[in-house]
């Protein structure tokens, strides 16, 4: 990846001025509220947004952005009629008009030049394709986690963000908001130099063997599948919300990494943040067979600074209770050497409104968001590697520069997968 100079606030303001000029000629948005009021900025100062994938999490994201006075929400795209129409209705109700555009195909939304930024909350097989397409169209992106479905996608997404000067934020709000009880003491140096982390993670995704059913008229099934292998419609493939035990798209390998990457984006993210491993990728993945058949194996990820992140290590194998450590209710425990080190300031969200406000503020200032796509993709390497080691039942070494496993041709086969035509990266 090449390093480009970042856009400055000055260049951003010049761009914004030009953008405002182009809005004047565009057929969208100008309303009686265009000049703003005491609580709402004028239209030219609002970030114009659209949403892609408006189901469970997407509707929540939409609500967060729609509620912001500095956002003008103008379009939605979803392959499912019920989600699409509900999303449009929420926007229209908010603004008291019928102006929100609704598209089946996300490419039509990305083609609109008046949209500054999009949020994406589709199943995971779409994340890389949509994010890269959005960057190419000059849009900033708030991308729900897990940001990647394969290891190869991360560098391509980061390259697109950097190449086109886009602000691309990953979408785990929990990384910052749920783990402060372990983040703060670690960054304060209270437990000393971090030595190891223990966390528990859920299972990887599985193959789907559900039967085919007649495709209902309210879904464009081919576009829902997109780059994933063709399979017959079954509501258990595409419905569900956050379940990963079957009958939910997050359960199946063609659309998700399962609980391992879905919750992994949160708990690996929180642990990596707390332990100061941001920006790093594991160099070694150690497989420890389970004590009994059918049990979850213990996978240990060694980072370049020597910190080892243990995933699903048995409690009796973990360090004793009296070592310097901090723990979290969700099973994350961070162990230090007990020799206090100098405190460092904990990174904070920018703007107001948690991770959504952080993203919007960075769209305005062109700074990198807290969950910058590069950090998010680095984080996601951990659960992806755990999944591969678990699947192959062996240890692995990772060459970050080459983005390949060392001397394991079968593991390298799992770096990526062929996408169904006509979809390409």
């Amino acid at each position, binding site marked *: 990846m090449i390093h480009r100079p970042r856009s400055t606030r000055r260049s951003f303001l010049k761009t914004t001025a030009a953008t405002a000029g182009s809005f004047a000629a565009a057929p969208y948005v100008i309303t009686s509220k265009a000049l703003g009021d005491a609580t709402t900025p004028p239209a030219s100062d609002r970030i114009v947004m659209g949403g892609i994938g408006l189901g469970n999490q997407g509707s929540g994201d939409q609500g967060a952005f729609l509620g912001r006075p500095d956002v003008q929400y103008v379009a939605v795209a979803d392959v499912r009629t019920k989600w699409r129409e509900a999303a449009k209705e929420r926007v229209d109700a908010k603004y008291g008009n019928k102006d929100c555009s609704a598209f089946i195909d996300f490419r039509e939304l990305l083609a609109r030049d008046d949209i500054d930024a999009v949020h994406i909350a589709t199943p995971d097989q779409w994340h890389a394709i949509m994010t890269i397409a959005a960057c190419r169209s000059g849009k900033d992106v708030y991308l729900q986690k897990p940001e990647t479905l394969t290891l190869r996608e991360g560098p391509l997404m980061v390259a697109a963000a950097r190449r086109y000067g886009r602000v691309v934020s990953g979408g785990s709000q929990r990384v910052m908001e749920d783990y402060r009880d372990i983040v703060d003491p670690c960054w304060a140096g209270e437990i000393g130099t971090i030595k190891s982390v223990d966390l528990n993670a859920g299972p990887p995704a599985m193959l789907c063997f559900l039967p*085919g059913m007649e495709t209902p008229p309210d879904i464009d099934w081919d576009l829902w599948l997109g780059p994933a*292998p063709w399979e017959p419609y079954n509501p258990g493939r595409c419905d569900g919300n956050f379940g990963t035990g079957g009958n939910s798209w997050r359960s199946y390998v063609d659309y998700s990494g399962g609980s391992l990457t879905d919750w992994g984006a949160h708990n690996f993210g929180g642990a990596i943040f707390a332990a100061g491993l941001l920006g790093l990728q594991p160099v070694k993945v150690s497989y420890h067979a389970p004590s009994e058949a059918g049990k979850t194996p213990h996978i240990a990820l060694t980072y370049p600074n020597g910190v080892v992140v243990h995933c699903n290590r048995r409690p009796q194998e973990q360090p004793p209770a009296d070592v310097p450590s901090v723990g979290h209710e969700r099973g994350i425990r961070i162990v230090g050497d007990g020799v206090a080190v100098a405190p460092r300031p904990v990174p904070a969200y920018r703007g107001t409104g948690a991770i959504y406000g952080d993203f919007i503020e960075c769209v305005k200032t062109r700074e990198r968001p807290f969950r910058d796509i590069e950090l998010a993709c680095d984080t996601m390497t951990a659960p992806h590697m755990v999944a591969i080691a678990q699947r192959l039942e062996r240890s692995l070494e990772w060459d970050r520069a080459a983005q390949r496993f060392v001397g394991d041709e079968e593991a390298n086969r799992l770096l990526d997968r062929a996408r169904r035509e006509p979809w390409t*990266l």
Partner: protein
Amino acid sequence: MALDTTTLDAPFAALTAYDFGADSSFVKTIDDAVIAAHGDATLTADLEKRFLALLGPGTKRAAKEYVCRKLSMIGTPAAVPALAALLGDKDNSHMARFALERIPGPESVAAIRGALGKVQGDLVIGMLSSLANRRDAESVPLVAPLLAGDAKVAVAAAAALGRIATPAAAAALAAAQPAAGPVADAVVDARLAAADALLAAGDRTTARGIYEAIAAQVGDAAGTRRQRAVRIAARGGVFAALDGTVAP
């Protein structure tokens, strides 16, 4: 302890008859055998032979799909002819690529390259996607002419050349003369991607030439959001090429 391969007979018999929604309990035994085959050439060859026997016309799509997933893990050059035979079949082309793309060695990528001039419609795009993922430099002379054909194929051809990113691929992209529209946009995106790859590989001169050409093409006018993003990419690339700030 070596796996008793007779235990595979019944699961493979079930796989032979498998269709979407049928009992799939047989796959666990086969999945475990595929994992156990690591480093065991005899078992790998046995499994591969069993899988290949299921790629013919008597097997349903669902079973072939599963077979291709497994061959993507353990397939060798011996699997290439049977998989290549599926590349022109619209129902099975993608999963054949799913396997072929992952099988190391020149045979698998040659099969995809060889199919490029034979398959039709969107399947051509599939071949281009896989050649891009394999970064197949040998395919550049076959891919370059597609830049002047059907627009959907031309967009995919441009993307493939951008991913292959050899000097020859970059030259083919530079020589393209598409009218304004999706193909022209795809060519610009691909040229920028190729320039980034060339710069990262140390070819600063070629990369800088590409960036400067695109910067000149997009000009200084405010333009669309897309044009501004391209301007950022091209000008940022020029700076990077000038000061050599290439990440290791």
